[in-house]
């Protein structure tokens, strides 16, 4: 009896130990897993793939270091695809913590793809005001972001000379850890009719599925799973980094399910044991 009861109340430190092992071990003993590509990720990839050479894509970096492991792989794969397709890139951040990522990631990948700052890509930096910035970008990007992240007037940057507002952009992408895609759908997609898609953390993903059905979002990258699928599509190979991370996530989910099942087993067996004891007592 005590054993069944104990199954419901296993010391949390034991659970933590299992979780830590599941998280760390795949980094030392990596294993390959089959990556199934979901429709929302296929759509995301296809939207960028169908853009003509020279088309302009803007990416908003609205996340901080806490969401970095999930969203940075998406950002890297996305910019990789953009540079491979010879598209132009504009990055900016509505979260102050997203600003360093909006600068570092394009700079690193631009070196690999021999892209020139100001001609092939621009980093506009951070701007407070979220809704006001989204709306103002629809009217005039030059007044929403008068300077880029390096302090240069954007009217002096060749790439930005012919870009005034959303109508000059071919695609808008939001990489978000919060509810920012809601704002983009409400204020940019509905008002200015710009094609839009998003990459979000797993905890937020369920909130944005209604926008996929209404086509207000062309595609969606949900969490690390979405990142791994998308990276697989872009690189056509299992990237070591994301596969390792997915291996950890697989093991952690498995352990959580096993513990939940153990807890429930303990609950039902204790309940039935008590029932039997009561019946015996009455008899």
């Amino acid at each position, binding site marked *: 009896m005590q054993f069944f009861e104990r199954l419901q109340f296993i010391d949390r430190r034991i*659970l933590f130990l299992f979780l830590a092992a599941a998280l760390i071990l795949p980094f030392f003993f990596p294993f390959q897993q089959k990556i199934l590509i979901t429709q929302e990720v296929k759509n995301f990839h296809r939207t960028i793939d169908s853009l003509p050479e020279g088309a302009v894509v803007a990416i908003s970096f609205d996340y901080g*270091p806490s969401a970095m492991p999930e969203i940075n792989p998406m950002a890297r794969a996305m910019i990789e695809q953009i540079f491979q397709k010879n598209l132009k890139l504009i990055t900016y951040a509505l979260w102050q913590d997203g600003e360093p990522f909006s600068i570092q990631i394009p700079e690193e990948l631009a070196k690999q793809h021999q892209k020139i700052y100001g001609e092939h890509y621009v980093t506009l930096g951070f701007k*407070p*005001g979220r809704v006001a910035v989204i709306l103002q970008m629809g009217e005039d990007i030059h007044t929403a972001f008068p300077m880029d992240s390096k*302090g240069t007037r954007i009217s002096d940057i060749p790439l930005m000379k012919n870009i005034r507002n959303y109508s000059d952009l071919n695609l808008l992408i939001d990489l978000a850890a919060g509810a920012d895609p809601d704002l983009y759908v409400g204020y940019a997609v509905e008002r200015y009719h710009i094609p839009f898609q998003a990459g979000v953390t797993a905890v937020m993903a369920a909130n944005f599925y209604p926008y996929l059905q209404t086509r207000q979002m062309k595609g969606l990258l949900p*969490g690390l799973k979405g990142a791994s699928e998308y990276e697989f599509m872009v690189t056509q190979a299992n990237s070591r980094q994301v596969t390792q991370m997915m291996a950890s996530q*697989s093991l952690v*989910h498995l352990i959580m399910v096993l*513990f939940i099942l153990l807890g*429930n087993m303990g609950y039902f067996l204790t309940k039935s044991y008590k029932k039997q004891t009561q019946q015996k007592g009455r008899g």
Partner: protein
Amino acid sequence: MVTIAIPWFIVLGFAGFTVYALFKPPLRRWVAISIALAVGMYMFFQFFTTTETPAGEYFNEWFQRFNKWAIIISGLTVILAVGNLLKIHILKVKKLQPGWGYSFITLLALFTMSLFGILGIQFQKEGIPWYQWTFRWLWKTFNVALDSSMFALLAFFMASAAYRAFRARNMEASLMLATAIIVMLGRVPVGDYITSAFPTLTSWILMFPNLAAQRGIMMGVALGAIATSLKIILGIERPYLGGAK
């Protein structure tokens, strides 16, 4: 943008100060409520205008002006936030209240990051990049590491809470438990190895029951937001007056 906005701010600031100095409290409140009403109604109606007519263009011009003001005001709120932070933590350090050490670290971090951040931009233009490097190094070494660690801890607490809370006590709890297990396994490659039904079921759950529930929530939230906005615009609720009636 700043050059356009500054004269407006001086004019409005002066007007606001005059109103504050000349009028008694009830009238002051009515002036604030009138401004909120006028701006709120304007931002609402401009949504239905088109720039193809001269009147629409005029509407759009002011819409853009309000947007620029909102961006500038959002930037200025940092001053308020930093002022408040300083007030609380300096007092705590000064009086050596319990936990004053944390307050001291907060102040140290605030001044260090601000110093290297502000000077970094200025000196980089003059060809002295090490301030900017230091800022980036501090951000990467401290902010990224601390923020990531805090969020990573959540995984452990969530796992522990899920293990303790997910019990099939009744019909509703059993449904939730089954859905959670299917989605947890369907969202990782290992679920597909167990049975290919897991990813298929997960997609179905996300695209149909989840979507229906989310849409219902979204509509409810939108209706609530409309009601709250109308209350604020019409002056029934006045959070911008510090909750004054």
